[in-house]
């Protein structure tokens, strides 16, 4: 899976790569790279498709528990009738989705109607290529990996437009435009929030960014980017923007089930709908993976004593933790209104991200400060983060406060 000189690593660390190489060792040398790439793609797809299936279940379980319900717990294993605490639920859902009628509206653009979910899924899978899953597990080593990630992410917007337009339904189209407005608005804070990381790391390569977070202060305290003032602010901005980019609650206006029908997905059914659903979860996973990579130290262990656990284990743990927060937030917050959504992006997140860029620049410039100056460094950076947050937050709250309705 990687161009790393992985042989120096312990066996457990490079187990997936070793397995893959064992599978392809019988092939002639010239074909091996192709087989290796295909195997990597299949592995990534299988892992994340399984994760998708489990996430749908986990999400419903967590939502259920938050509302003091058990969540899905009945679906039995096929032909056996044994209940598995709902573990067979994704299977049942999948069969249901596959066997449903695939409806294409009359007059719809059939080609685009079909291509939209496929393109969306393809673009979301592309983003998995540059995330370092472990010390030896980086599918594609790219010089401009972060840029690649966001370029592939930007292409998904085209697929959403295709879905809305091909449905030949004015509500689908309007909803697609709204979805695009949201995605484009939040792309800005998302990109601006990662610029400080690139600035500090001096690299667009994900593996290098992770490597740089692999040191420990005083031997115990991990130096992940999130544990710096600018990194903390950047991570929060990134997280909020990621919520909006992956159409997750509380920013799930594009497909607000209870208010709009399903936005650009209105005219989709059956397997195509399942593909959209899958792409949404893939996008969520990819953005979480990027967040882990950029801010949470990637596959690095939190303390050196725990470094014996394989790096992909740490990555998976962090990824799952972040995905849990996604679901926790979904269980907590009500949906925003469209004006609140755009105001949050343009009046709050973007200015904060721009200020954060200055904070990061200060952090880089003051990297030599030591002793009492280090304390001053933290103080200044903290003020630079907290001050704008308080000022902008006050103005934001003023607009978000209780409203009086004239005719209510």
């Amino acid at each position, binding site marked *: 899976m990687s161009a790393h000189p992985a042989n120096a690593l312990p066996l457990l660390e490079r187990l997936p790569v070793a397995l893959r190489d064992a599978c392809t060792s019988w092939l002639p040398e010239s074909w091996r790279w192709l087989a290796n790439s295909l195997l990597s793609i299949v592995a990534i797809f299988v892992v994340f498709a399984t994760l998708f299936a489990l996430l749908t279940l986990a999400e419903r379980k967590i939502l259920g*528990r*938050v509302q*003091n319900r*058990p969540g899905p717990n009945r679906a039995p294993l096929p032909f056996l009738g044994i209940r598995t605490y709902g573990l067979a639920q994704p299977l049942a859902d999948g069969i249901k989705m596959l066997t449903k009628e695939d409806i294409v509206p009359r007059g719809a653009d059939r080609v685009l109607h079909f291509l939209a979910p496929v393109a969306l899924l393809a673009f979301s899978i592309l983003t998995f290529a540059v995330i370092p899953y472990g010390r030896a597990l980086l599918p594609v080593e790219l010089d401009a990996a972060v840029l690649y990630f966001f370029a592939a992410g930007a292409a998904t917007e085209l697929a959403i437009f295709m879905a809305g337009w091909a449905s030949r339904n004015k509500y689908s189209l309007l909803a697609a435009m709204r979805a695009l407005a949201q995605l484009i608005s939040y792309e800005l804070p998302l990109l601006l929030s990662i610029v400080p990381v690139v600035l500090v790391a001096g690299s667009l390569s994900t593996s290098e960014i992770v490597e740089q977070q692999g040191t420990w202060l005083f031997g115990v305290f991990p130096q992940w980017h999130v544990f710096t003032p600018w990194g903390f602010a950047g991570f929060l901005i990134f997280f909020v923007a990621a919520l909006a980019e992956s159409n997750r609650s509380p920013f799930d206006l594009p497909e607000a089930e209870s208010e709009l029908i399903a936005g650009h997905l209105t005219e989709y059914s059956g397997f195509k709908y399942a593909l959209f659903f899958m792409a949404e979860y893939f996008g969520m996973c990819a953005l979480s993976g990027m967040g882990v990579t950029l801010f949470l130290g990637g596959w690095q262990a939190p303390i050196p004593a725990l470094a014996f656990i394989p790096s992909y284990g740490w990555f998976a743990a962090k990824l799952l933790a972040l995905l849990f927060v996604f679901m*926790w937030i979904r269980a*907590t917050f009500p949906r925003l209104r469209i004006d609140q959504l755009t105001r949050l992006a343009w009046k709050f997140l973007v200015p904060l991200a721009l200020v954060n860029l200055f904070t990061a620049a200060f952090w880089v410039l003051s990297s030599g400060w030591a002793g009492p100056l280090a304390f001053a460094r933290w103080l200044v950076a903290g003020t630079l983060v907290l001050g704008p*947050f*308080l000022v902008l937050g006050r103005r*934001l709250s003023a607009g978000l406060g209780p409203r009086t309705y004239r005719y209510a």
Partner: protein
Amino acid sequence: MLGSGLLQGLAVTAKNLAGSFHDPARYVTTEYPEQRTKLPENYRNFPFLVHDDPADPNGTLRCVACQICEKECPPQCIYIVMERDEKGKALRRPKVFDLDISVCISCQICVEVCPFDAIKMDQEYEIATRNRFGGLLLHREDLSKSNAYYHQIHPTEAAGVDAALAEQKAKQAAAKAAKAAPAPKAAATTATPATAATAQDSAISPAPAAPPPASAPDTPANPAPANPPPDA
């Protein structure tokens, strides 16, 4: 500060998430087919007919096919035919008692007008059926349920009904005893019309059974029912 409210909200949901695992008071779900909540005593949905002897459900129906309920029913979902013997004499029990619960509005008027405490409200709610056209049309056999069942679902109400019935029975017995000695007319006039009617029903002895009375108040106006059975 912006965000404190968000954190509070997250704390609330986290508390629920954790609490639902260890705090039974929070975990309020009843897993329906296996677990059922006890229905409130006064819950009612559709009527059923009470019979006294489980060994003979159709023979001991309290219903005398008086058709009061059929006439009172607002959506007219009851259909009754009285059973008659070969000579065409009315037997004062229903040959047909059909109740379409897809029409019934659960208004309980049939129960209130029944002079014989023969029709009561049921609590059976699993009434889904695969038969679209006749599945919800209940017949006499489906409707007939024992007094013990009635006690089980509406204990307080059933006890009251039984007490009233027993009282009337006693009264009737006293009246009979009185009739044996003095003039029979006196007993009939002392008994209130409705109780007289029910008493006659509950008594094993044949009831007066005015040929289908139009309504309950009419029954007493006619002195005939108080008389010893005209045609039994």
